[in-house]
C-alpha cells in the first residue's frame, strides 16, 4: 500500500483529481430523447469531499455512471464533455484501460450492498479478489490483507466472519464490507452513490463516521452522491446542487446552506420538516413537479416552479457564475437579489442542533 501512497505523493499535483467539464448524457428510446445530463462541470481535489445533491431524476447518478463507463448503452450515450482523471480524459480511453483505472484508482460504493456482492462466494473470497486482480497477490497474502482491511472497517470477529456469505451479514456490516472492497487497493478517488440511504439512522451515523475517518486517514478524494441535505452537510467540504441534469449551485457547504443563492436550494431547505418543526412553522414546499427530461423547459429549467421567475427566466438560460464573495457559483439571473433578501442562518437563529 505504501508503494501507491508514494506514487500519489510523487505525482503531487495540486490541480483537481477529477475534473468533469460540459458532460452531456442522453437516453434515446423509441424516438424519444431524454436529456439526463446537460453540461455538467464538477471537480474534486485530493483529500476533499464533494457532495452531489439532487432529487430523483436530477442526473446525479447518471453523471457518475457515464464517467465510470457503467452507463447502459444503448440507450444511454455520452454526447459531449470530458472527464479528466489524473491528467487523462476517461472518455478517450479504451474500455479495457478505463476498467483498469476504475476499481484500482477509483473505488465505488453503491446504495445496495447486497447487489454489489456475489451471493455464492464467501466474503473473504470476494475481498481477496481485489488484491489478486489489482495487486497480483498470492492467495495467502491476499487473505491476510483482506483480514486487515475488514478489521479496519469495523467488522467484528474477522477470523470467523471472513468465511461467511454476504447474506449472513447485516445491512450495516454489508456496507462496511463494500467500503472495505472499494478502499482495498487504496484508490485516489472514491465515488459513493447513496451509501447510507438504505440504513437506519444509528447505522448511518456509524458508516458516515467510518467514511470520514478513512477519507482523512488516506487523503483520498470522495464524491458522495446523495439526496439528503443532512448527510451532505455532515460530511462534505463542498456541495454541488443538481436540477434537471444541470448544476444549479455549487460551493462551500457553509456558504451554500447558510445563504443559498439559487431559489431551488432555498426551496429544498424550506421543504425540510426538521427545520419547520423546530421553528413551529408550516412547510413551504416547492410547488409543482420536477420537469420531464424529454421536454426540459426553455430558459432556466427551474422557472415553472420558481417563485421569482420573470420573462427573462423563460427565455434565457442562466449560466453558472460566481456570486457574492466568490465562495460559490449559482445559475440564476437573480442570485444577487436572492442573497441580499434572504436572512442568513445566524439571523434566522435555529434551535436545531
Amino acid at each position, binding site marked *: 500500500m505504501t508503494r501507491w501512497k508514494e506514487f500519489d505523493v510523487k505525482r503531487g499535483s495540486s490541480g483537481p483529481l477529477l475534473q468533469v467539464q460540459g458532460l452531456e448524457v442522453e437516453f434515446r428510446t423509441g424516438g424519444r430523447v431524454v436529456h439526463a445530463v446537460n453540461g455538467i462541470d464538477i471537480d474534486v481535489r485530493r483529500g476533499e469531499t464533494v457532495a452531489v445533491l439532487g*432529487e430523483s431524476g436530477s442526473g446525479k447518478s447518471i453523471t457518475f455512471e457515464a464517467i465510470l463507463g457503467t452507463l447502459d448503452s444503448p440507450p444511454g450515450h455520452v454526447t459531449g464533455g470530458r472527464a479528466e482523471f489524473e491528467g487523462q480524459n476517461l472518455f478517450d480511453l479504451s474500455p479495457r484501460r478505463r476498467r483498469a483505472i476504475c476499481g484500482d484508482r477509483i473505488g465505488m460504493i453503491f446504495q445496495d450492498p447486497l447487489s454489489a456482492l456475489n451471493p455464492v462466494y464467501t466474503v473473504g473470497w470476494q475481498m481477496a479478489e481485489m488484491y489478486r486482480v489489482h495487486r497480483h497477490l498470492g492467495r495467502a497474502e491476499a487473505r491476510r490483507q483482506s483480514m486487515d482491511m475488514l478489521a479496519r472497517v469495523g467488522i467484528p470477529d474477522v477470523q470467523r466472519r471472513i468465511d461467511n456469505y454476504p447474506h449472513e451479514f447485516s445491512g450495516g456490516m454489508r456496507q462496511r464490507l463494500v467500503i472495505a472492497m472499494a478502499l482495498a487497493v487504496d484508490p485516489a478517488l472514491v465515488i459513493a452513490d447513496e451509501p447510507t440511504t438504505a440504513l437506519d439512522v444509528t447505522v448511518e451515523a456509524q458508516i458516515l463516521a467510518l467514511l470520514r475517518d478513512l477519507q482523512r486517514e488516506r487523503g483520498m478524494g470522495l464524491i458522495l452522491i446523495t439526496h439528503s441535505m443532512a448527510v451532505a452537510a455532515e460530511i462534505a467540504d463542498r456541495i454541488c446542487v443538481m436540477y434537471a441534469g444541470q448544476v444549479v449551485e455549487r460551493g462551500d457547504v457553509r456558504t451554500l446552506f447558510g445563504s443559498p443563492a439559487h431559489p431551488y436550494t432555498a426551496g429544498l431547505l424550506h421543504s425540510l420538516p426538521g427545520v419547520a418543526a423546530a421553528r413551529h412553522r408550516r412547510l413551504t*414546499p416547492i*410547488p409543482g413537479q420536477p420537469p420531464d427530461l424529454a421536454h426540459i423547459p426553455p430558459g432556466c429549467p427551474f422557472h415553472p416552479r420558481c417563485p421569482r421567475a420573470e420573462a427573462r427566466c423563460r427565455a434565457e438560460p442562466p449560466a453558472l457564475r460566481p456570486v457574492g464573495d466568490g465562495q460559490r457559483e449559482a445559475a440564476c439571473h437573480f442570485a444577487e437579489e436572492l442573497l441580499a433578501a434572504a436572512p442568513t442562518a445566524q439571523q434566522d437563529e435555529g434551535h436545531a442542533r
Partner: protein
Amino acid sequence: MTPEHLRPDSDVVLRVQDLQKHFPLRRAGRHGPGLSIKAVDGVTFDVRRGETIGVVGESGCGKSTLGRAVMRLVEPTGGRIELMGKDITALSRREMRPMRRHVQMVFQDPLSSLNPRMTARQIVEEPLHIFRWGDRASIEKRSAMLFDHVGLPRASLSKHAHEFSGGQRQRIAIARALALNPSVVVCDEAVSALDVSIQAQVLNLLQDLQKELNLAYIFITHDLSVVEYISHRIAVMYLGRIVELADTRALFDQPMHPYTQALMSSAPSRDPRVLGAEREVLAGEVPSPISPPSGCRFRTRCTKAHDRCAVTSPAFRSVGSGHMAACHLNEAGDAPIPDEVV
C-alpha cells in the same frame, strides 16, 4: 393539564392494550423449544380524534407490524384492540367488515399498492362500491370531491397509476383511504419514498385534511424530522415494545429513555445550516427479535445499563404529565438524566 388517565375517553377512537404479534418460526418438539419472532410484544396506547400519533423506530422494531395488527391485517396473538369503543380483537371476518371503514391505510410505495390496471377513478371508487355508498351519481360526485380534496386535477380521473408521478400517486392512495370517511388513517412510511420537495407537499396535504376532517393518524416512520413535524404525540419503539411515549415537544426537549436519547443524537442534524455537529454514534446493532435480551431489551447497547437492567424488565410508567417511559433510571431513587438537546 389533566393527567392522561383522567382525560375523558369519549375522544378515544382507537385503544390498544398489551398488543402482541408473534410470528411462529418453529413449534416446540424434538428440535427443542418453540421459536417465534416477537415483532410486537406488549404495546399499549390510545389514539384520540383528530390527533397524530407518530410511531418511530429502526427497521425491525415492529412499527409496521403494529400498524397492520391494529387494522387486523395480521392477526394479533395477544392483547386487545378497541375501535370506536368496540372490541374488535376477536371479530370474525364478516363482523370485522363494517368496522373496516373506520380505519384505513396509506402505504409507502403507492405504485405497488395501486392496481396498475385500474384508473385513478376506479381505485378511489372501489371502496365506495364495496360499502354501497349510494347510486352511481353520488359515487361519482364523491370521487370528484375526493380528487379536489387531495389536489389532483379532475381531468386525470381516467389515467392509470403509472401515468402519475410519485407524489401524485400518493395523493391517489390518500384519496382512496379517505373515501369512506374513516376516523383513523394508518400511514406506514407514507412520505418516505418521496423527494423532499414533494414530501413537503404531501405532509402539508395530510395536515390540511386532518384539520378539515378531524382525522386521527397513526404515522409510522423511521424519519425523526418527519415525525417531529407531523405528530402531536410520539411513541418510540425498540424490539417490539414502546420504550417512550410523550408529547412531541416534551419528547424532543427532554427525552427520558436512553434509546430515545441515542436515536436523537445519532440522527443527522435537522437543519443542514447548523454545521459541525458531529453525531454521537450508538454502537452495535439491534439484537434479534427471536430471542430478545433479558430484562430491558435495550441494555445490550445502553451506556447507562447496570446489573438490574439484565434481570427485570422496566415498567412502562409515567415520568411526567402524559410522558411515559420504560427505564429503570427513571424510577424513584434515581434522578432522571435527560441529555440536553440544544
